[in-house]
């Protein structure tokens, strides 16, 4: 059950819509934002694969310019396994 800390960057004018979009995503918690378009979120998914898919989908969302990981905890996962 990995947990990731992520900074999502969006255009300032898209901030509200992007924040709303992120809050509606399963496995995403929005923790804060600023007027530059930074949004601090935490990913909490049941598998690493789900985390990867979430990261990918958000990175490709039209409202998102970049999603950058800063922290990843995967203590429940072992090498070569994908989790429950």
């Amino acid at each position: 059950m990995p947990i990731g800390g992520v900074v999502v960057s969006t255009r300032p004018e898209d901030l509200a819509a992007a924040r709303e979009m992120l809050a509606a995503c399963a496995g995403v918690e929005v923790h804060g934002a600023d007027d530059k378009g930074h949004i601090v979120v935490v990913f909490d998914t049941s598998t690493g694969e789900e985390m990867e898919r979430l990261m990918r989908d958000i990175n490709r969302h039209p409202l998102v310019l970049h999603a950058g990981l800063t922290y990843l905890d995967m203590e429940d996962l072992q090498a070569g396994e994908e989790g429950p």
Partner: protein
Amino acid sequence: MAQTRRDFLKRTAALSAASFVGIQLPFTAADLARAADGEQWHRGTCRLCGVGCRLELGVRNGAPFALRGVAEARTNYGYLCMKGMHFWKCMGHPDRLTKPLYRAKKSEPFKEISWDQALDIAADRFAAAVRDHGGKAVAYYGSGQCLTEETYLFQKIMRGGLKSNNVEGNPRLCMASAVGGYLTSFGADEPIGGYSDLEQAHCFFIIGSNTAEAHPVLFRRIMRRKLDNPEVKVINADPRVSQTSRIADKHLQFKPGTDLSLLNAMARVIVDEKLHDEKFIADYAVFRQGKEGKAVTFAEYAQSLAPYTPEAAARTCGGNITADDIRQVARWVATSKGTVSLWCMGINQRKQGVWANNLIHNLHILTGQLMKDGADSLSLTGQPNACGGVREAGGLCHILPGHRPVEKEPMRRQVEDAWGVPAGRIPAEPGLHTMALFTAINEGTVKAVWVNCTSPAQSLPNCDLYNQGLAGDGCFVVCTDIFKTRTTEYANLILPTAFHFEKTGVYGCTERRSQLTRKAVNAPGEARPEVWIACEWAKRLAVKLDDPVIAQCVKPFEGLEADYALPRAIWDEYTQKLTKGRDNDLRGATYPVLERMADGVQWPAPTEAFALTGGTVKKFVKGRDPMADSESKNDLPYQFYGPAHEDRKLWVWLRPQADPSEIPDADYPFYLSTGRIIDHWHTMSMTGRVPELLRANPYAFVEVNPGDAAKLGIKPGDMVEIKSRRGVNVLPAKVYEGPMEGMVFAYWHDQEETRMINRVTKDDYDPASKEPEFKICAVQVKRVSGPKPLKPFIVA
């Protein structure tokens, strides 16, 4: 209120992210009630691309459990990409090689043997080849992923011990043209500036690089600069629209192989509109032409640009480019307060790769967009240690450690003296470059090759041709690696190695920055660090060839434990003895200094005191680069002390448009280009074993422009045959407004034999850099069926 472990981790993750952007959260680190008992964080560098992101590996009970970025690191400021976040999964992976494997003939199955047996066999076969045929009959083929200590030690044994300059590595396939460009334009390899320019630039010219997918952490910095300063211009020039294009003010989609025209046309606009910096040119630049570098005048240079009117170049380049586009981007590049150009394989992997590099540098020299903050001509690298290990420490056939050309006798003498081996021990002629090496293996003149941490059987262009030699029993093949690959299928001897964070050593990234990673976890089974393997091999070689000089090559390292003392001693020898007074002076970047620095040291860094400031941010600038001061010859603020230009000038080159090696014709009507996808790295021997990454992209596909797809009856997911004069692939189609019409684009990571695109690519190469033209060849494109279920494939 009681806090669960999961709450603690989530808050830790949120605080980590928030700290990088200065956002205050309603809780602080002090509120996190649970202490991190038994956790250790080990600082190091990411294993994958050339950005050099600093991170910390969390280890508990001897096993990794978390990664976090290092906020104060100037490479990444704490950010990491998803691919990088997963490299830890190679540690302890069930596919890891854990015992030496051997077979006398390649038709036989492998059997497990002991290290003693393995090292004896490796020494026997290399010794026999040298005894019977001389040093030219053996070769080392390394990697931009090896630690500097590893590359340095192997090349020392090969050159000083076995009297062979057949020392090569996969950076020949990716960075050799950038080396040639820097040497011929600036007189010195590697960039003048670095990443710090990104936050100060006012214009980005990104050509031949999908930075967003290949270097996502740097792309974030560019994107952030643009977002915070909307007046900053971003130009993206590429035959393919990519994720990088998203932030571009102007995307120039040019026909493959017409980049030289585009760049010359931009130079012409600069000259015609008098946007060049006359004083800068007068003080620092000269103009050169032809193979001999004949001096010409500015007027002659300007005259050479006459054919490249924006209108003519727009016609040559095709795509969406107009003459006004060329004028506009040339003005942006020339007149911004600071322009940074960035490029990668789209420029380097060309038959005119050095020329294309020169023409980018020309734009910067003409306009003085160099040496000042926010301006640089910055070649991105694809591997974590192509610069530090291979370019700087002697990992190519023509260069000795410390950027010393092999063919210069005084340079060879300096190295021989440092090593304590007799004068004349290092052969006077450069060895075989990569394509010549694998040709020689085909021809049977190289009898034994050591392949370290790379997979040429998949990564060479036109690989079927070169795999013939590797497959035969005429060449004894040793592979050192952590996993089986397409190349281990051709090995006689497979030696299991320690992975990143399972050993200690230095990586040097794109921006002249050396960073140390110390061992944090044990390697599995009997996997060993390469430096230990090389030392043990050399000792046996010395006995078998009865040659004390070979023993001398590793004598300084005898008896040192392999996890720290041995790599440190190797690093000390290299930096203290062989970078002194060279442009990559690393004497100040000792292990103790590197251990203190969050993000390593940029060379030149001649003293520890200077290295502790971070080193040289801008080369050649007095007051900022200690060598610019110590090597100063006049009162000018910039001093070009690089080893390749005795006149200490920047050279503007006259380079005409020239066609790529193969252009589409009636029989093979499409361009093929290849590249990387965000989830996979190189030949996917690592990323293909990470389930999350593999499932995100389980196999390669080919991108087809919707216009071409309509003409060819190709629908999304259809199986499409891509056939060249050399080979064929069958790949699922992605119909996508990415490649321009008349061009298809395929990813090169897939190991499955019908999807290995380097069976199709062309093996012609740049005559100067010897780097192959992976990026352009001519192919047929044909729908063969509807969608088919495909399975991912990894060599077992």
